[in-house]
Protein backbone atom coordinates (compact mmCIF):
# COMPACT_ATOMS: atom_id res chain seq x y z
CA UNK A 1 0.00 0.00 0.00
CA UNK A 2 1.63 3.18 -1.14
CA UNK A 3 1.77 6.40 0.81
CA UNK A 4 -0.54 8.04 -1.70
CA UNK A 5 -3.29 5.53 -0.92
CA UNK A 6 -2.83 6.08 2.83
CA UNK A 7 -3.15 9.86 2.45
CA UNK A 8 -6.23 9.38 0.29
CA UNK A 9 -7.82 7.04 2.83
CA UNK A 10 -7.18 9.50 5.69
CA UNK A 11 -8.76 12.37 3.74
CA UNK A 12 -11.67 10.13 2.77
CA UNK A 13 -12.36 9.28 6.43
CA UNK A 14 -12.10 12.95 7.48
CA UNK A 15 -14.49 14.12 4.77
CA UNK A 16 -16.91 11.26 5.45
CA UNK A 17 -17.06 12.05 9.18
CA UNK A 18 -17.50 15.75 8.43
CA UNK A 19 -20.35 15.11 6.01
CA UNK A 20 -22.01 12.66 8.41
CA UNK A 21 -22.06 15.08 11.34
CA UNK A 22 -23.09 18.01 9.16
CA UNK A 23 -25.98 15.90 7.88
CA UNK A 24 -27.05 15.34 11.49
CA UNK A 25 -26.98 19.09 12.19
CA UNK A 26 -29.13 20.11 9.22
CA UNK A 27 -32.41 21.86 9.90
CA UNK A 28 -35.64 19.95 9.36
CA UNK A 29 -37.23 20.87 6.08
CA UNK A 30 -39.99 23.45 6.31
CA UNK A 31 -39.68 24.01 10.01
CA UNK A 32 -39.86 27.57 11.29
CA UNK A 33 -36.59 28.66 12.82
CA UNK A 34 -35.75 31.88 14.62
CA UNK A 35 -32.13 31.80 13.48
CA UNK A 36 -32.95 32.04 9.79
CA UNK A 37 -33.96 35.74 9.90
CA UNK A 38 -37.60 35.24 8.86
CA UNK A 39 -38.24 39.00 8.63
CA UNK A 40 -36.46 39.31 5.29
CA UNK A 41 -38.36 36.36 3.84
CA UNK A 42 -41.66 37.80 4.99
CA UNK A 43 -40.74 41.23 3.59
CA UNK A 44 -39.99 39.76 0.16
CA UNK A 45 -43.16 37.66 0.17
CA UNK A 46 -45.26 40.69 1.10
CA UNK A 47 -43.70 43.39 -1.10
CA UNK A 48 -42.04 41.72 -4.08
CA UNK A 49 -45.11 41.85 -6.31
CA UNK A 50 -45.83 45.53 -5.70
CA UNK A 51 -42.24 46.71 -5.78
CA UNK A 52 -40.95 44.84 -8.81
CA UNK A 53 -44.17 43.98 -10.63
CA UNK A 54 -43.11 40.38 -11.21
CA UNK A 55 -45.32 37.48 -10.25
CA UNK A 56 -42.33 35.22 -9.78
CA UNK A 57 -40.71 36.19 -6.49
CA UNK A 58 -37.55 34.26 -7.27
CA UNK A 59 -36.96 36.30 -10.43
CA UNK A 60 -37.64 39.50 -8.55
CA UNK A 61 -34.99 38.56 -5.99
CA UNK A 62 -32.46 37.37 -8.54
CA UNK A 63 -32.76 40.28 -10.98
CA UNK A 64 -33.97 43.16 -8.83
CA UNK A 65 -33.17 42.86 -5.15
CA UNK A 66 -29.94 40.96 -5.75
CA UNK A 67 -29.12 42.16 -9.26
CA UNK A 68 -25.52 42.79 -8.36
CA UNK A 69 -25.12 39.14 -7.42
CA UNK A 70 -26.46 38.11 -10.83
CA UNK A 71 -23.89 40.41 -12.42
CA UNK A 72 -21.22 38.43 -10.57
CA UNK A 73 -22.68 35.17 -11.83
CA UNK A 74 -22.63 36.48 -15.40
CA UNK A 75 -19.01 37.49 -14.91
CA UNK A 76 -18.19 33.97 -13.73
CA UNK A 77 -19.74 32.50 -16.88
CA UNK A 78 -17.91 35.00 -19.09
CA UNK A 79 -14.61 34.13 -17.40
CA UNK A 80 -15.28 30.42 -17.86
CA UNK A 81 -15.92 30.87 -21.59
CA UNK A 82 -12.80 33.01 -22.01
CA UNK A 83 -10.73 30.45 -20.11
CA UNK A 84 -11.98 27.49 -22.14
CA UNK A 85 -11.37 29.23 -25.47
CA UNK A 86 -7.94 30.33 -24.30
CA UNK A 87 -7.03 26.87 -23.00
CA UNK A 88 -8.11 24.93 -26.08
CA UNK A 89 -6.85 27.29 -28.75
CA UNK A 90 -3.80 25.17 -29.57
CA UNK A 91 -5.70 21.89 -29.82
CA UNK A 92 -7.98 23.29 -32.50
CA UNK A 93 -5.46 22.79 -35.28
Amino acid at each position, binding site marked *: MSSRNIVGAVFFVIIAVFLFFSALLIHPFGEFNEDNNPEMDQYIIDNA*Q*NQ*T*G*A*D*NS*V*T*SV*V*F*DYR*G*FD*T*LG*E*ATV*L*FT*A*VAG*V*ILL*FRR*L*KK
Partner: protein
Amino acid sequence: MMSRIVKTISNIAFPIVTIYGLYVIAHGHLTPGGGFQGGAVVASGCAMVLVAYGSVWTMRKVKEKHLSILESLGAIGFIGLGFIGILLVFFYSSSDGNFFQNFLLKQDVIPIFNEIGKGLSNINTAGVLPLMNFAVGLKVIAGLFVIVLVMAYATRLKGEKQK
Protein backbone atom coordinates in the same frame (compact mmCIF):
# COMPACT_ATOMS: atom_id res chain seq x y z
CA MET B 1 -20.90 11.33 -35.63
CA MET B 2 -23.53 8.78 -34.75
CA SER B 3 -26.00 6.58 -36.56
CA ARG B 4 -28.95 7.63 -38.66
CA ILE B 5 -31.39 6.82 -35.84
CA VAL B 6 -29.75 9.25 -33.43
CA LYS B 7 -29.62 11.96 -36.09
CA THR B 8 -33.31 11.58 -36.90
CA ILE B 9 -34.37 11.65 -33.26
CA SER B 10 -32.25 14.72 -32.58
CA ASN B 11 -33.72 16.42 -35.65
CA ILE B 12 -37.18 15.86 -34.18
CA ALA B 13 -36.30 16.75 -30.60
CA PHE B 14 -34.15 19.82 -31.24
CA PRO B 15 -36.99 22.26 -32.20
CA ILE B 16 -39.11 21.10 -29.26
CA VAL B 17 -36.28 21.57 -26.78
CA THR B 18 -35.42 24.97 -28.24
CA ILE B 19 -39.00 26.21 -28.13
CA TYR B 20 -39.38 25.02 -24.55
CA GLY B 21 -36.17 26.76 -23.51
CA LEU B 22 -37.21 30.01 -25.18
CA TYR B 23 -40.58 29.73 -23.43
CA VAL B 24 -38.86 29.37 -20.07
CA ILE B 25 -36.77 32.47 -20.84
CA ALA B 26 -39.70 34.56 -22.07
CA HIS B 27 -41.91 33.67 -19.09
CA GLY B 28 -39.14 34.08 -16.54
CA HIS B 29 -41.01 36.76 -14.59
CA LEU B 30 -44.26 34.75 -14.45
CA THR B 31 -43.46 31.08 -13.99
CA PRO B 32 -40.56 29.20 -12.40
CA GLY B 33 -37.41 29.52 -14.45
CA GLY B 34 -35.60 32.41 -15.99
CA GLY B 35 -32.63 33.34 -18.08
CA PHE B 36 -30.16 30.87 -16.65
CA GLN B 37 -32.50 27.89 -16.63
CA GLY B 38 -33.98 28.44 -20.08
CA GLY B 39 -30.56 29.13 -21.52
CA ALA B 40 -29.32 25.86 -20.06
CA VAL B 41 -32.24 24.04 -21.71
CA VAL B 42 -31.51 25.53 -25.14
CA ALA B 43 -27.78 24.91 -24.76
CA SER B 44 -28.42 21.26 -23.86
CA GLY B 45 -30.47 20.93 -27.06
CA CYS B 46 -27.53 22.35 -29.03
CA ALA B 47 -25.25 19.89 -27.23
CA MET B 48 -27.56 17.06 -28.34
CA VAL B 49 -27.09 18.12 -31.96
CA LEU B 50 -23.36 18.30 -31.32
CA VAL B 51 -23.32 14.72 -30.01
CA ALA B 52 -25.46 13.44 -32.87
CA TYR B 53 -23.64 15.10 -35.76
CA GLY B 54 -20.10 15.29 -34.46
CA SER B 55 -17.95 18.25 -33.57
CA VAL B 56 -16.38 18.70 -37.01
CA TRP B 57 -19.74 19.13 -38.75
CA THR B 58 -21.04 21.45 -36.00
CA MET B 59 -17.90 23.57 -36.00
CA ARG B 60 -18.25 24.01 -39.76
CA LYS B 61 -21.86 25.17 -39.38
CA VAL B 62 -21.43 27.37 -36.29
CA LYS B 63 -18.35 29.47 -35.79
CA GLU B 64 -17.17 29.98 -32.24
CA LYS B 65 -16.39 33.60 -33.05
CA HIS B 66 -20.07 34.29 -33.70
CA LEU B 67 -21.04 32.61 -30.44
CA SER B 68 -18.51 34.74 -28.58
CA ILE B 69 -20.04 37.86 -30.13
CA LEU B 70 -23.51 36.70 -29.01
CA GLU B 71 -22.28 36.09 -25.47
CA SER B 72 -20.63 39.49 -25.31
CA LEU B 73 -23.85 41.10 -26.59
CA GLY B 74 -25.77 39.44 -23.77
CA ALA B 75 -23.28 40.68 -21.19
CA ILE B 76 -23.29 44.21 -22.61
CA GLY B 77 -27.10 44.23 -22.65
CA PHE B 78 -27.28 43.11 -19.04
CA ILE B 79 -24.77 45.66 -17.76
CA GLY B 80 -26.25 48.37 -20.00
CA LEU B 81 -29.71 47.80 -18.54
CA GLY B 82 -28.14 48.21 -15.12
CA PHE B 83 -26.42 51.46 -16.09
CA ILE B 84 -29.56 52.99 -17.60
CA GLY B 85 -30.91 53.01 -14.05
CA ILE B 86 -28.04 55.27 -13.06
CA LEU B 87 -28.61 57.51 -16.10
CA LEU B 88 -32.13 58.29 -14.84
CA VAL B 89 -30.56 60.48 -12.18
CA PHE B 90 -29.12 62.80 -14.84
CA PHE B 91 -32.09 62.80 -17.23
CA TYR B 92 -35.03 63.14 -14.87
CA SER B 93 -33.14 64.18 -11.73
CA SER B 94 -35.14 61.60 -9.84
CA SER B 95 -33.87 60.60 -6.46
CA ASP B 96 -34.37 56.87 -6.95
CA GLY B 97 -31.89 56.15 -9.70
CA ASN B 98 -29.69 53.25 -8.73
CA PHE B 99 -27.65 50.54 -10.34
CA PHE B 100 -30.20 47.96 -11.56
CA GLN B 101 -33.05 50.38 -10.99
CA ASN B 102 -36.32 48.99 -12.37
CA PHE B 103 -36.90 52.05 -14.56
CA LEU B 104 -39.60 50.66 -16.85
CA LEU B 105 -42.03 49.93 -14.04
CA LYS B 106 -44.80 52.34 -13.02
CA GLN B 107 -44.32 54.88 -15.82
CA ASP B 108 -46.36 55.81 -18.88
CA VAL B 109 -43.69 57.09 -21.28
CA ILE B 110 -42.70 53.70 -22.66
CA PRO B 111 -45.72 51.36 -22.75
CA ILE B 112 -43.83 48.07 -22.47
CA PHE B 113 -43.53 45.93 -19.36
CA ASN B 114 -44.83 48.76 -17.18
CA GLU B 115 -47.67 47.06 -15.32
CA ILE B 116 -47.73 45.33 -11.97
CA GLY B 117 -48.53 41.66 -12.20
CA LYS B 118 -51.75 40.55 -10.57
CA GLY B 119 -51.88 37.06 -12.03
CA LEU B 120 -49.97 34.67 -14.20
CA SER B 121 -51.66 35.71 -17.47
CA ASN B 122 -50.23 39.17 -18.08
CA ILE B 123 -46.80 39.07 -19.70
CA ASN B 124 -46.61 42.87 -20.00
CA THR B 125 -45.33 43.27 -16.45
CA ALA B 126 -42.26 43.48 -14.26
CA GLY B 127 -40.42 46.37 -15.90
CA VAL B 128 -36.85 45.64 -16.80
CA LEU B 129 -36.83 42.06 -15.55
CA PRO B 130 -37.92 40.36 -18.83
CA LEU B 131 -35.25 42.28 -20.76
CA MET B 132 -32.63 41.15 -18.26
CA ASN B 133 -33.96 37.60 -18.63
CA PHE B 134 -33.48 37.82 -22.39
CA ALA B 135 -29.95 39.20 -22.02
CA VAL B 136 -28.91 36.56 -19.52
CA GLY B 137 -30.60 33.86 -21.60
CA LEU B 138 -28.68 34.88 -24.72
CA LYS B 139 -25.50 34.93 -22.69
CA VAL B 140 -26.06 31.48 -21.20
CA ILE B 141 -27.07 29.91 -24.54
CA ALA B 142 -23.98 31.18 -26.33
CA GLY B 143 -21.65 30.63 -23.37
CA LEU B 144 -22.58 27.03 -22.57
CA PHE B 145 -22.73 26.05 -26.23
CA VAL B 146 -19.34 27.54 -27.02
CA ILE B 147 -17.80 25.77 -24.00
CA VAL B 148 -19.18 22.37 -25.09
CA LEU B 149 -18.36 23.00 -28.77
CA VAL B 150 -14.75 24.06 -28.24
CA MET B 151 -14.03 21.24 -25.80
CA ALA B 152 -15.58 18.62 -28.10
CA TYR B 153 -13.73 19.95 -31.14
CA ALA B 154 -10.40 20.11 -29.32
CA THR B 155 -10.63 16.55 -28.01
CA ARG B 156 -11.95 14.96 -31.20
CA LEU B 157 -10.43 11.73 -32.43
CA LYS B 158 -7.55 12.16 -34.80
CA GLY B 159 -8.86 9.52 -37.16
CA GLU B 160 -12.28 11.12 -37.49
CA LYS B 161 -13.27 11.80 -41.05
CA GLN B 162 -13.15 15.44 -42.05
CA LYS B 163 -16.22 15.28 -44.23
